[in-house]
């Protein structure tokens, strides 16, 4: 899955490894191909190696082994300022001693561009992020969101083909972050640049990306479109990291083609889709999304159906979150839709809960 079948990818990581101290690899055998115009997000917990990958691409870190190519050319020996990559930093990194206009003019000036052409481009770039009126201000006079827009405009003003963003929205509050997500997404669509975006916020990744590379432990755990990542996680880490997940540990009891029977610790037998698991007798982790479990009211007859006890109910408006004791675990989450015809349940009540074997994924242990 790590190799994308594309005849002409724009950015390629080829067997890249990176170590800082010579003892531990922070990036282990990274292979990744990014298409031109794609919005690719590197998502993962801190220390997973995603930022290191971005820094290697920008040229601030060197790969210990392997090659990084842009447009077919290896860039390992090209210094950062000759790579022509736009970059947005987490703390914006706007130069405090320059005005907004001078900040945007900087990349154009060091490229030897004339004054009139420079001013033209600065104006256009600022207009793109609706910051034309702030051209004479200093960064300290702007709010966080405004600084972020300016940083974005500065990374785009010299028209790079590739833009890197290192958790650019990390310092903003929630509402601003959401509106900036849309803004960045629309700018990407409008300009057609290739974007590599690093974040540890899965909502951000799901909102903006064409594809997401989930990093953990120096490796890409899964590279997929946002929907696939949520619906079809390939291993237990991705299932747990993206969205909410019910995790159940067990052993493969029998294999029937694409499906498997898994015996849990309390002895109950669950039918599940065989995604990433070996033969009979092996340990496995079952993954089930909370919204895929439902109360059985007689009509439906799913492959899996168990007796459950309602431990806790939390009213969340559009749905009611219920924590159940089922199959030997007591933190099984199920979402009860807040619909007119829904049964009212109460805490302590015993109900019957079921799910389809298609929705329950047997992953690695």
């Amino acid at each position, binding site marked *: 899955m790590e190799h994308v079948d594309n005849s002409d990818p724009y950015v390629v990581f080829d067997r890249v490894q990176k170590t800082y101290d010579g003892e531990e690899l922070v990036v282990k055998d990274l292979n990744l191909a990014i298409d031109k115009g794609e919005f690719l997000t590197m998502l993962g917990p801190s220390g997973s190696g995603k930022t290191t990958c971005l820094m290697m691409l920008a040229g601030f870190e060197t790969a210990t082994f392997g090659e990084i190519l842009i447009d077919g050319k290896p860039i390992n020996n090209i210094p950062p*300022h000759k790579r022509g990559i736009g970059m947005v930093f987490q703390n914006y990194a706007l130069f405090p001693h320059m005005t907004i206009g001078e900040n945007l003019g900087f990349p154009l000036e060091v490229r030897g561009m004339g004054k009139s052409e420079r001013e033209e481009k600065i104006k256009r770039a600022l207009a793109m992020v609706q910051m034309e009126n702030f051209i004479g201000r200093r960064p300290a006079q702007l709010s966080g969101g405004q600084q972020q827009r300016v940083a974005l405009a500065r*990374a785009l003003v010299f028209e790079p083909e590739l833009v890197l963003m290192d958790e650019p929205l990390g310092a903003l509050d929630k509402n601003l972050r959401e509106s900036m997500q849309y803004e960045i997404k629309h700018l990407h669509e409008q300009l057609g640049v290739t974007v590599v975006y690093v974040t540890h916020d899965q909502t951000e990744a799901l909102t903006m990306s064409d594809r997401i590379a989930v990093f953990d432990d120096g490796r890409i755990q899964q590279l997929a479109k946002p929907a696939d990542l949520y619906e079809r996680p390939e291993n237990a880490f991705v299932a747990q990291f993206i969205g909410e997940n019910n995790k159940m540990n067990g052993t493969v009891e029998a294999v029937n083609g694409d499906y498997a029977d898994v015996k849990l610790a309390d002895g109950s037998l669950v039918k599940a889709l065989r995604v990433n698991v070996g033969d009979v007798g092996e340990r496995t982790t079952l993954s089930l999304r909370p919204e895929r479990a439902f109360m059985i009211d007689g009509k439906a007859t799913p492959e899996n159906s168990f007796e459950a006890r309602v431990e806790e109910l939390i009213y969340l408006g559009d749905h009611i979150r219920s924590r159940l004791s089922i199959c030997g675990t007591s933190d099984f989450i199920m979402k009860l839709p807040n619909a007119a015809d829904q049964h009212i349940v109460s805490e302590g009540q015993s109900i019957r809960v079921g799910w389809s074997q298609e929705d329950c994924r047997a992953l690695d242990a």
Partner: protein
Amino acid sequence: MQQSASEASPNDHMRDGKLVTADGRPLKASLKTAERRRKIIAFAFVSPLLLFLIVSFIVPIGQMMWRSVDNPTIINTLPRTLEAMQDWDGQDVPDEPVFAALREDLAIAQENRRVGPLAVRLNYEISAARGAFTRTARTVADMEPPYKEQFLDAHRLWGNPDIYQIIKREGRPLTASYYVAATDRRYAADGSIEMRAEHQRIYMNLFGRTFAMSAVILVLTMLLGFPIAFWMAHLPMRYANLLMIMVLLPFWTSLLVRTTSWIVLLQQQGVINSSLVNLGIIDTGNRLSLMYNMTGTIIAMTHILLPFMVLPLYSVMKTIPPSYLRAARSLGANNWTAFWRVYVPQTLPGIGAGGVLVFIISIGYYITPALVGGQSGRMISNMIAYHMQTSLNWGLAAALGSMLLISVLILYWAYNKLVGADIKLG
């Protein structure tokens, strides 16, 4: 704030268009009461320091500045003479009444043992005054009128009209004569102020040299300190700490010990000269004079003042995130452009603070120039010390000191105007 007051909701307490607390007191008065206790406590904490500063710093400095213009000796010792001289034409030796008054003043002064200070004071103005006054004062008790002839016989100075002009000029409670002397000027015969002859000028040249040497020391500390501060701010902790210790080492050794080691190193038969001779770079006849001159003072003071440049620079550099340099490079600037256009401008507050500190400390520096400066490496403070301790002309020392203080204040004011930032330290 005004807007919110005028649009205050019915829940706000209002009286006569002003916000009040729930019990009807004006909000501002209420705030003041609430803050008063805190302010008193805060003041109580700093008051010992304030008292100490007043006693040990502000009062002595005021005293010094006062002493540079204070002139009580003549007016207190020769009141009758000054009164008698009111009618004097100011040209020739005065007439009998002045001498009668002078005799009486001197007789009283001799009795009260006040001739000595008077003689010293007048000797600052004209060099024979000391002898004339002390010798004449011993004989005034035996004088009989008329006195003029006897005075003229007692000392040749009494035949010189200058001494009477000086008594008249300096017979006032305040004097400018110390400042006149401190700026290498003097009173001409007609009472106007003129520059001294070129070869007699001491203080202005010394001020000039002090400022020039301080400027050289400032530039040297800046050139040497910038790279050290840069590495300290960017190396990993353990190396940075080692560098910090090396920078602070001068602070931890006694000034005398350090200076002694400079003497060992720099003197004509010292380590550096001997090494150069042994290596055959210079011959033994041409040993470099690295100390007891300006070079020695500059080398030693640069070393001593380096931490004052490094520490403010380091504290400023420490706060510059590495992402600025990265951003500059990602935007297409090479290493040098990124450093010069993005990094250096952000260190300006540190350079300014360190520069002002080093410059101000070095123009008032005393001990090192005194120990390793020799004749050409002396600075204005050494002259002030000389007048304090050896010539005992405190008025002149005070005038020189006040001029130094005022030039420091002007410098600091100019720095604040230019950089507009408070001095940052540590």
